[in-house]
């Protein structure tokens, strides 16, 4: 009895109070907790010291609620027709589609050289690092960078979205390609097939479904980005109408309608891409 007890107590850690510890305070946990604490303190300080001017907090909340009610319970179109709304949504979807499809084609070619089973390691690594840099900059920023040359508008928006799409898809595609069994590549090479033969006869057929799923996933992202670009970068489409309705006409009913429309599309895309992802990308 005694020996068992002592051997067990040996590695149980206790707090200074003598109670048994169950958390393990490692570095990342300390950082996480510290960050949360600092953020909480900062927001409390912020709320207490804001300059609220003449705004009455209760009145403001009520007004916001009234606006929300207008937006979502009496959603309606005033400044343009339903047909026009559908056209504008089509424009936004088109913008997203274009950026995604062109991006996917470019990405496939680059990904072949970024996959370590098809390309020399130094080249693959260089591409992956380069792409990571591009990805680290948000899409909106890229759009503004292109706007310097092309001016704000759909061109800059497409270019910015395209660049970010490529940066995202190259990584995703390259990883899908790297999952291909090395033996298959070896078998074809051993029979005298050249690199392009291996790509078109083994790599593409084996990875097609996961490449398409990734592309669709990105299309979903690009749709939301395209809405934002319509508003921020003047790329047109439903995002621009939303911007006009809220910031220009102050038409809350219309804002509501547009939001519903965007939500509908986004939910549909989300639904499809989740199913695709479950089926083809995430392997159990």
């Amino acid at each position, binding site marked *: 009895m005694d020996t068992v007890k002592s051997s067990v107590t040996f590695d149980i850690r206790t707090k200074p109070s003598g109670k048994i510890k169950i958390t393990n305070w490692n570095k990342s946990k300390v950082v996480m907790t510290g960050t949360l604490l600092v953020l909480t303190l900062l927001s409390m300080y912020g709320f207490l010291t804001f300059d609220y001017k003449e705004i009455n907090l209760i009145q403001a909340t009520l007004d916001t609620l009234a606006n929300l009610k207008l937006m979502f319970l009496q959603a309606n179109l005033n400044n343009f027709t339903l047909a026009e709304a559908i056209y504008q949504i089509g424009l936004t979807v088109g913008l997203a589609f274009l950026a995604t499809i062109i991006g996917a084609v470019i990405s496939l070619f680059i990904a072949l050289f970024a996959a370590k089973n098809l390309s020399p390691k130094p080249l693959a690594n260089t591409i992956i690092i380069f792409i990571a840099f591009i990805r680290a900059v948000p899409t909106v920023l890229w759009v503004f960078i292109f706007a310097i040359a092309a001016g704000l508008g759909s061109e800059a928006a497409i270019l910015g979205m395209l660049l970010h799409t490529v940066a995202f898809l190259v990584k995703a595609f390259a990883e899908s390609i790297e999952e291909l069994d090395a033996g*298959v590549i*070896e078998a074809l090479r*051993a*029979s*005298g*097939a050249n690199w392009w033969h291996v790509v*078109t*006869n083994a790599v593409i057929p*084996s990875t097609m479904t996961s490449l398409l799923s990734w592309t669709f996933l990105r299309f979903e992202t690009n749709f939301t980005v395209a809405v934002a670009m319509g508003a921020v970068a003047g790329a047109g489409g439903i995002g621009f109408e939303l911007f006009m309705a809220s910031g220009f006409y102050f038409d809350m009913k219309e804002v509501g309608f547009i939001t519903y429309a965007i939500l509908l599309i986004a939910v549909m895309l989300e639904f499809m891409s989740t199913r695709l992802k479950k089926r083809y990308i995430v392997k159990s």
Partner: protein
Amino acid sequence: MPLLEVKNITKQYEKDKKVLSGISFDVNGGEFISIIGPSGAGKSTLLRCINRMVDFSSGEILFHNTDIMSLSKKDLRKYRTQIGMIFQHYNLVSRLTVIENVLHGRLGYKTTLQGIMTRFTEEEKKEAFHLLEKLGMREHAYKRCDHLSGGQKQRVGIARALIQQPKILLCDEPIASLDPNSSKVIMDHLKNISQELRITCIVNLHQVDVAKHYSERIIGLNGGQIVYDGAPQELTTTNIHQIYGSEAENLILA
């Protein structure tokens, strides 16, 4: 004149560790050779030196009197079409059909564009069906490869190698993932191939009894060196000792 002459080759992946050292042997047309030896002896490496999937460090391999290390990129592809290869894990493109996988064996004869467009001639397709017929796989021609059993996959692998019209078949543990019945089917097919088509088979095996039963010649490898090269009937217990080390003997002969 032998078909293939392996002359004193060595292979090192890392600086001071020889995976193969001083390997020499000649191979004649239609021979059935088994290579046996413990894990890590260098069997797979040796096979891959023959079709230059691995470049050896020193020595020479002559095929029809041509030094295979001197081949240009284009000639290397041409050379590889003459050497078929069969693998333990079959290495088929599982999303494609049986017939598509068999036709992959013709890619070595294609230009880049023909290969990309998967342009195969009617003769090639007929030949593919003919080979599948001979291997008892005709009715599975349009099935996806991931729907096949191991034994069936290996027969697709054999058909893919044969459609190359090779002079040599390199088989890297072709039956290591198969049950005894499928193993027998595969080994019988390989034996037939070497006898009827006069295609040389070089087979890496882990089962000494299978090697003895099927081959005309056994090469024993240990630590990257040939410790036995001769007829299966002459393989003695002492030889098996030398190949596998003394502890393994009881296991193997049990």
